[in-house]
């Protein structure tokens, strides 16, 4: 299990390959990449703030929970902070398992929990100014699925 919290960009494809490489007993690898989305075509930058220390432990706790609930060979979580440009990857989750259902469900679960339980906050900067992204009720509701 690997958890990385970093300001540096990462290469999702290279991470996927290195995560999937040289595994025995694995039939399914699922990855999720979150990308800075320019909803209205006016986004200059996205700033991601986090809570150093708590971030790492909160993500590790969520990943541990996934490992306990599903038969996983491995889990990878990478999450960036700092200033990001539209189209850049914000974060990535990957799961490896013998069977596809476990890999899919665990990745979906990890995303739902990272979204609402890992201490990150997004701020969008446009020509009109900067505004914090509001949490969605739907994101909190998504946790009830698990």
């Amino acid at each position, binding site marked *: 299990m690997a958890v990385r919290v970093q300001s540096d960009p990462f290469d999702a494809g290279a991470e996927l390959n290195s995560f999937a490489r040289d595994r025995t007993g694995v039939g399914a690898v699922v990855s999720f990449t*979150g990308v800075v989305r320019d909803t209205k075509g006016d986004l200059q930058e996205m700033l*991601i*703030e*986090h*809570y150093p*220390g*708590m971030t790492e*432990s*909160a993500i590790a706790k969520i990943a541990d929970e996934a490992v306990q609930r599903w038969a996983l060979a491995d889990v990878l979580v990478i*999450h960036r902070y700092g200033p990001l440009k539209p189209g850049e990857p*914000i*974060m990535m989750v990957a799961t490896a398992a013998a069977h596809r259902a476990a890999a899919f469900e665990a990745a979906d679960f990890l*995303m739902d929990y*990272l*979204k*609402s*339980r*890992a*201490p*990150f*906050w*997004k*701020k969008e900067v446009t020509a009109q100014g900067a505004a*914090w*992204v*509001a*949490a969605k009720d739907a*994101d*909190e509701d998504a946790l009830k699925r698990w």
Partner: protein
Amino acid sequence: MNVVYFAWVRERIGLPEETVDTDAATVKDLIAELSAREDRYAAAFADTTALRVALDQELSDFDAPLDGVREVAFFPPMTGG
């Protein structure tokens, strides 16, 4: 006790972190104490339904006791992922 603020809570209060000398028994008591201190705190803590709290880097709630806690963090709902 170390008190830390993130996102708009940090911006509204105007600092990321401070040491608070307090005998507050619970998170609620600490909020009342800070809110009474200055308007910027009162503004930040006006609507606690829009706030989350972590005690020693673990999510907690406003009724939680502060006994033995070294770090209290206030922030809006998280928007990672």
